[in-house]
């Protein structure tokens, strides 16, 4: 257990040294944030038909989405893991007395956390100080803030459980681009990263109910602004935990299967 914690710390510290990448990320996210908020502001000024989410909730959603993008966006896979598989360095990892699933999991999540630590604060601060109606609102209540933090953390754990499955499939096929591009599109659409779930057509919203993706980011962001009631939030947390257990168990099982058939690349 200690070694996993230590590894988490090492990877976290390691990730914190990439300041230029973080700076570039912040700029990109801010630009995206502006584009999105401006579109929604002009959209809302021409309609009064949207009752699923208010403009201020939506703009808050956008800024949160930009600030925590790395944590909730189904992209930025750990290319190092795929590289290790492709060039065969994974052989070393198999010569170590640890559980490879846990090890990779820690690596992926630590990378996400270190990246988000470097990025989120400037974007949040900017969002908060912007003039109305472009600004990000404060949390609806102290409870919704606490539940927001909790569901966001669980959401990131859920996301990495899905990413792990992609990595393991990559281990089997030696290439993760095909499978990952399919999952990236599905996930980002159904998790509300492309368009917030309340704005999706009803039928699509119904579909998202049965899938884990909306629990990654749509849930915490709507809890924050009070678009989702505390009661419904608590129910969703149970759902998040169930999905995490299912996805991690599935990942561990296919990992075991893959290791039996593993073939190390190169030399």
């Amino acid at each position, binding site marked *: 257990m*200690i*070694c996993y914690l*230590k*590894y988490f710390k*090492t990877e976290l510290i*390691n990730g914190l*040294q990439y300041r230029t990448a973080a700076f570039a990320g912040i700029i990109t996210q801010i630009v995206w944030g502006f584009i999105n908020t401006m579109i929604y502001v002009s959209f809302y000024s021409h309609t009064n038909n949207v009752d699923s989410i208010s403009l201020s909730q939506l703009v808050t959603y956008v800024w949160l989405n930009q600030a925590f993008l790395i944590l909730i966006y189904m992209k930025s896979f750990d290319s190092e893991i795929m590289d290790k598989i492709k*060039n*065969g*360095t994974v*052989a*070393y990892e*198999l*010569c*170590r*007395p*640890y*559980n490879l699933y846990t090890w990779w999991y820690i690596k992926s999540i630590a990378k996400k956390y270190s990246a988000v630590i470097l990025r989120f604060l400037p974007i949040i601060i900017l969002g908060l100080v912007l003039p109305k109606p472009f600004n990000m609102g404060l949390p609806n209540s102290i409870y919704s803030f606490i539940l927001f933090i909790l569901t966001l953390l669980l959401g990131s754990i859920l996301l990495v459980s899905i990413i792990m499955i992609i990595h393991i499939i990559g281990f089997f096929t030696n290439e993760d681009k095909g499978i990952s591009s399919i999952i990236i599109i599905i996930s980002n659409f159904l998790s509300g990263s492309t368009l917030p779930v309340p704005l999706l057509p009803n039928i699509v919203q119904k579909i998202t109910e049965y899938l884990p993706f909306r629990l990654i980011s749509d849930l915490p962001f709507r809890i924050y602004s009070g678009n989702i009631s505390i009661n419904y939030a608590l129910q969703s947390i149970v759902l998040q935990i169930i999905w995490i257990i299912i996805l991690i168990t599935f990942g561990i099982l296919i990992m075991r299967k893959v*290791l*039996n*058939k*593993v*073939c*190390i690349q*190169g*030399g």
Partner: protein
Amino acid sequence: MSFITVQNLNKTFKILERDPGLINAIKALFRKDYKIVKAVQDISFNIDEGEIVAYIGPNGAGKSTTIKMLCGILNPDSGNILINGLNPFENRVKYVSSIGVVFGQKSQLWWDIPVSDSFELLKSIYKIPKDEYIKTKEELVKLLNIGDLLNTPVRQLSLGQRMRCEIAASLLHNPKILFLDEPTIGLDAVSKVAVRNFIKEINKKKNVTIILTSHDMSDIEALTNRIIVIGNGKKLYDGSLSNIKKKFSDHKKLEILYSGLKKKPKINNVNVIENKRNYVLYDVDMKKNTISDIVEKYSKVCEINDINVLNENMDDIIIKLYEEYNL
């Protein structure tokens, strides 16, 4: 019962095959052809504790595959491996605590962080007690002369520096067995000798069993007398290096510098490699000729200034060995 017992080991790989060209590429989308490659066939051997064994063979012979099965990375198709009472693949996590591994072409150190941080991480991975860790680390740092490198990120080390750190990393937890897969690949002469001396030292001092593969015959000559030769997945030879040398080293090169020669002596059954004024280089087949015979013939007709007898080098012997087994 030996320390390492390997019985009737087999491993096959399925390799995707495709003829070149666009049409074949499209065909391959619908039907894939696989070729079965028998990487390791029916290999058995025993190794005792504290032995150094060199595992040699041409590229693609199945060396690395065997090593990977011995390390518990690959699951053999059939056959048994028992090392220190454990089955490497089935008890992987427990087993790997007792082995150290260096793959010369890959790096086990974390690329972005200083060497000492990698060592610290290994310390917690292997749950090495603090006192033992400090003691082993100091010893390794001294023996491998890497004290100055510890605070450098791995990406900034030269290959020789990195390899020394890799070897240290593989020994921090005091393993009973050390697998070295081409540990000297790409190293300069000084680093090579340093690595070799270190391997010898660690074997003597801690009684570590060492299994190494290398294409550098001077490595093997310097380190061990027992070799296992493998080719096309089959074991061809298991025994002492000196026997192989005796068997195949039947040619010697003879160099004679002379003066005052009027007529060259006639020598049968010998290849002249070079023939210059006052100098001749022969390739002597020891079964048909003797060195003294040739020298005597020369001494009768001229004054000999210098003689050199050159043994065949190890690479030539190995080439002959491979040739004999049609590799």
